[in-house]
């Protein structure tokens, strides 16, 4: 089967390896793991400067069938339906590989997905500020990944291409809820200016591990 969806799982650091191993036994061809950081909104921890939580992100190319199986397993074996056990979600994609018959329809853009994954890329160090902005706009969590841009030659002694360091922030929520978050990020992080960063929204078909504040109407703002 040709994979047609990207399965993402955000779990505690050190657990993604086991997850990948397990997924491969289920027939997933391969996967990629990278390190991320979650944030804990507790004011005490953030006063102490230790609000950071180490996470790992696992990315698997899967078929729709397989992703159903994975979700069941996330629930049964990795207890993701419980709070603070991590989240998983699926993004549809079109993988490009050579010499293949064209598949008539791509992903239907017009269909509105139930969830959205917001990816924001900003300069390093601004990820946490961004999370604060997002939280105020109703976000319930996010994962910061350290990344870097392409090397830029500069006028320095060593002939080095200095790679600008970036923070990449992933926020997943229902489509309705992400819209104000996206707007807030766009406005408050000053993204309309050039070279300040970008925010992208990707469609998400299914999630597990997301939580709703106890009373449904309340957005959980503090």
């Amino acid at each position: 089967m040709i994979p047609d969806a990207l399965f993402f799982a955000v779990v505690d650091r050190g657990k993604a390896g086991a997850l990948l191993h397990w997924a491969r036994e289920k027939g997933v061809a391969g996967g990629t793991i990278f390190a991320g950081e979650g944030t804990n909104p507790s004011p005490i921890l953030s006063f102490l400067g230790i609000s950071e939580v180490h996470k790992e992100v696992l990315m698997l190319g899967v078929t729709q069938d397989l992703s159903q199986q994975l979700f069941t397993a996330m629930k049964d074996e990795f207890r993701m339906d419980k709070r603070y056990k991590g989240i998983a979600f699926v993004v549809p994609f079109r993988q490009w590989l050579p010499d293949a018959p064209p598949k008539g329809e791509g992903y239907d853009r017009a269909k509105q997905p139930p969830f959205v994954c917001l990816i924001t890329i900003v300069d390093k160090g601004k990820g946490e500020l961004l999370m604060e902005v997002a939280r105020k706009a109703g976000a319930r969590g996010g994962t910061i990944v350290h990344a870097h841009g392409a090397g830029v030659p500069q006028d320095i002694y060593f002939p080095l291409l200095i790679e600008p360091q970036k923070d990449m922030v992933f926020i997943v929520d229902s489509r309705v809820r992400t819209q104000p978050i996206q707007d807030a990020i766009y406005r408050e992080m000053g993204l309309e200016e050039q070279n300040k960063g970008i925010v992208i929204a990707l469609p998400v078909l299914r999630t597990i591990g997301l939580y709703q504040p106890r009373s449904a109407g309340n957005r959980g703002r503090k």
Partner: protein
Amino acid sequence: MSLLREKFSEVSRSLVPVVTLVLLLALTLVEVETDILVRFIAGSALLLVGLSIFLLGVDLAMNPIGENMATELATSKTAYKVAGLSFLLGFLVTVAEPDLLILGNQVEAASGKSISAMMMVYMVSMGVGVMISFGTFRLLSSRSYPVFMALAYGVIFVLAILVSEEFLAIAFDASGATTGALTTPFVLALTAGLSRIKGGKTAEEDSFGMVGVMSAGPILAVMLMSILTGQEHIQGEAELFLPDTGVLGPILHELPKVFMESLIALLPLSALFFIMNLAKFKVQKRELGRIIKGLLYTLLGLAIFLTGVYSGFMDMGQIIGRGIAEHHNWLLPILGFVMGMIVVLVEPAVHVLGQQIQDATGGRIPVKLIRITLSIGVGLAIAGSMLRIMIPEVKLWFFLLPGFAMAILLSFFSDPVFVGIAYDAGGVASGPMTATFVLAFAQGAAAMTPGANVLVDGFGVIAMVAMTPVLAIMILGAVFQRKILKGSKEEHAMLEEPAVTIQTGAALGYDCMMAVLNRGLSQEALDVARDAGAGGATIIHGRGSGGHDMKFLSFEMLKEKEIVVWLIDDRISGTIAKTLHEKLDLGGEGGGKVFLVPALAMGLKAPGKAAEMLRPEPAEGSVPPGENSAPA
């Protein structure tokens, strides 16, 4: 899991074996007074709390400070500034190291005042500064690391012929004293920062090796000093051993003293950072606040940790060493091996190095594997030291010369990342735990063994600990290298996958293109994509598997990967993906994949359009708690 809990469980996992072993010995083979036993347990508790807080502080403060300094170094416009600043950094982190002053005083006393303590401290600090300076130039100008280290140790070998065995031991001991609890984490952070800024294909191996470079500095400095002053022999006996009595007394006595020592050790570097922050870095307020908190944690943690070690572990080490040497002499090498193995895992720098391996290699190299190898190395070092104490004919250089010679030879056939880690491991392993607990154990054993010289044999222990981990990890790296070469051949045959092209949809906006590539290919991918019409991109560093299994012992090895993310007009994204696939040979050499995800909206230039596309539908309101699913 919160950060503090993570550190706490990491430290306790490494501490439990040590406590178990000591209690076992204290209850069976060795007679230990109750107050010392109780103090050991209290000391362990202090160690656990202190080390956890300390490691947290290193994360919060040392890493950003190291990174800022590294940026300053790498972006210098003149060579003088690079040389000056790197020398200053090396000098400042070393000069305030309390262990170094203690060693200086010992040498001053043992040499009959012909070498003063302060002269020793300054010489060693200058040695470190010079080596860090050379090391920085080496790294930034991409010269071969194995050759550099071979040259450094070549000089050491030549000088070693000219100095006496005592000074050989003191030289290595000085190197152990400088790679203390504070310096090693800082130098590791500095190196990580340098490699991150330099980037490119060698970023992974560039993240290691500076601790190894730095530890050559003191060795050279002390040997030169011995040759220049004509001082050859030292005499003297170690102080008479008198264990402290009571439980709380010694702890309360140590705490303020250790606190001041830690403060002094931390001060020069912090001062330099704050001055440079005012003048140059100007880090954001939030970040600065965190660095200050981190420095406080570092100070507090270090003071508590060292108090626990000094008051709880020193006497215990002596007593166990004496007890075993007196009644069960033959047990010494075996016990030394076990003790070296488990004690080294409590070293602060070992935890920091583990974290760095995790970060720099994207988790490709299992930290556990490095720890086990390091453990075995140190175990062998202590066992060898015990043999040396028991049999006076066995000289220190019997171990050091062939050990280092073999390590240097192997460094040319080893996986490059392992070479850096290996040279670092020597400095990392000889930290405060080895310098107190293990050393006290060895001194205790020497005191009860006829024919052994407490002072000389004691000094030699650190030298052994500085050598064996280097060799052990180098051997691991050589084995690893063979494995990888074999593994990549198998991989080629397996990457022939079925393939599909999917037509691009209607031109509604942009595609998010993600390419998962082998490490080092991202720059090429960026160039190819740019030529084909793509814009800028962001690169994440990770690890992954692509249908091939690579196992080493029972550890699963994943390949290092880079994930490159572009945002591309979806009318040309298919073509770009195709170009990438062909130009980079992703089916074969490149070992990668390209994914295209349609972006729903994005705030690149058209906020109005982005907002429009995401208007909520009135029917959709709440999300059911727990598993959220919807028909695809």
